[in-house]
């Protein structure tokens, strides 16, 4: 990880790593059909945070993430990572979508190693990273298969391994477990949490599931209906302690249930 220049660290207040400053998005702006998707939004978080965004459908959560990924230039405001303004997609920000968006013409290993190969890392390092990440998502034995020969959960694990093999500072996840069945989903939550604990990367995670957000996040950001804005930011303690306790026991605990109900009430109050 490159050191941040001191001056930028000082101008960026506190220890913000990712900053949204007055970021707004209007689709088709300047035309008669202009649709505001995101109200001017300020949000900053630190290195190592696991920020979960929840909100009603179409509230602009994905739009917000896309400005950070560099897929969508904001209509107003600016997005920066480590003090550098985002101007397009880049390998410092790994992205995982709801649909795994894998490359079915490449083997599992070639999918996992896509980023390191495109960036021209030394061959031995490419191999090491592929093996490390395929082993850590349990797909090493499937390395010579093709993505379409994997189950939905395995495909999503491969998409995560592909993003992490680049060792990005920031991982952006847009409802990555939304298409999985409940059991697989909970297993994946546990595995993702374990990886985050081990690697300490910064994560922006978008989900419909309040349960998922409260379990995974160090912070839960609740957004309003379209055009989206941030209603409330709620610190969540479970990400820091989980891993020592079993996922089912955490989710059944009184403090977990209370926090989940608090977030749900905010969303229900929005009529979402």
């Amino acid at each position, binding site marked *: 990880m490159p050191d941040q220049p001191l001056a930028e660290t000082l101008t960026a207040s506190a220890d913000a790593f990712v900053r949204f400053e007055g970021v707004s998005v209007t689709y088709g702006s300047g035309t008669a059909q202009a649709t505001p998707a995101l109200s001017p939004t300020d949000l900053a978080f630190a290195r190592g945070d696991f920020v979960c965004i929840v909100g009603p459908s179409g509230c602009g959560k994905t739009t917000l993430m896309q400005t950070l*990924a560099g*897929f969508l230039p904001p209509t107003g405001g600016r997005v920066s990572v480590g003090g550098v303004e985002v101007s397009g997609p880049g390998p410092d920000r790994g992205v995982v*979508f709801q*649909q795994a968006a894998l*490359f079915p*013409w*490449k083997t599992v290993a070639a999918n996992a190693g896509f980023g390191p190969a*495109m960036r021209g890392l030394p061959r031995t390092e490419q191999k090491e990273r592929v093996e490390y990440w395929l082993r850590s998502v349990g797909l090493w034995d499937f390395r010579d298969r093709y993505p379409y020969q994997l189950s939905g959960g395995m495909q999503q694990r491969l*998409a995560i391994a592909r*993003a992490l093999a680049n060792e990005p500072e920031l991982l952006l996840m847009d409802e990555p477990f939304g298409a999985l069945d409940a059991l697989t989903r909970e297993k994946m939550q546990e595995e993702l949490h374990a990886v985050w604990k081990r690697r300490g990367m910064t994560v922006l995670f978008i989900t419909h599931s309040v349960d998922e957000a409260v379990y995974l996040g160090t912070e839960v950001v609740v957004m309003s209906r379209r055009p989206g804005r941030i209603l409330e930011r709620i610190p969540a303690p479970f990400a820091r302690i989980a891993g020592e306790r079993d996922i089912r026991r955490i989710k059944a605990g009184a403090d977990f249930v209370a926090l989940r109900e608090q977030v749900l009430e905010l969303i229900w109050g929005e009529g979402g």
Partner: protein
Amino acid sequence: MSLGGLRRHRAGPRLALGCVSVAFALLAWQSVNTFHIIPSGLLASPAQVVAALIDISRHGYRGTSLGEDIGATLLRALGGFAVGTIVGVPLGLWMGMNRFAAAGANWIVQFLRPLPPLSFLVLLMLWLGTGDVAKVGLLALTAFPIIASATFAAVAAVPVQKIQAAASLGASRGQIFRHVMLPAALPTISTGLRIALAAAFSTVVAAELMAGSDGLGWMIFSASQFLRNDIILLGIIILGLLGMALSSLLLGLDRGLIHWRGRE
């Protein structure tokens, strides 16, 4: 999956059914002859066609051997198809990648695509002569708009998330093109190539009917002037078999190379 089961029949029964239907067609043909449903002077029997095949294989037809006629037709069809591919695929890719290229070229391509190629054969012959250049040019004009349209559509249909995923993994524009756009578009391009080859093949015969002194189309046309319907039928059968062979060759290449077709 039950649907997968539906799509993957075993080869044995399929082969048998194919043979049965061909045998049935041959039997029907023979019956038409045997019971004189069509006067025998107007429809040769299967045996007469086989005799014509043996005769032409040995002595050729009006100065050209059967191999030469087949070769001439094949070379023209494949030559036109090759030129159409060499022009059509890059143009379609460029149109798919660049909206200015798309806007500039699409009307021309869409204008050419539905035109019956034979409608400009005479013009081509006036400009390029009655030889093979005009014929190959005609077939290239037949194949190229089909190939360019299919390639354009294929590139435009590449899922944006795959491109975004590649970009966020650090791929350059050129790498995205080579490693994502091209393979994602390949199944549709391949389908376009098969359709274009079939179109070129059916046009080559018509072109040979109008001008030329060799090729299967010429052989059929020439035989029809002498009412040699055994040779007409022989030419038709050889054409059909050649078309099937070419088509299944491309299909085999497609199945062998594009293993990800239809799979996510």
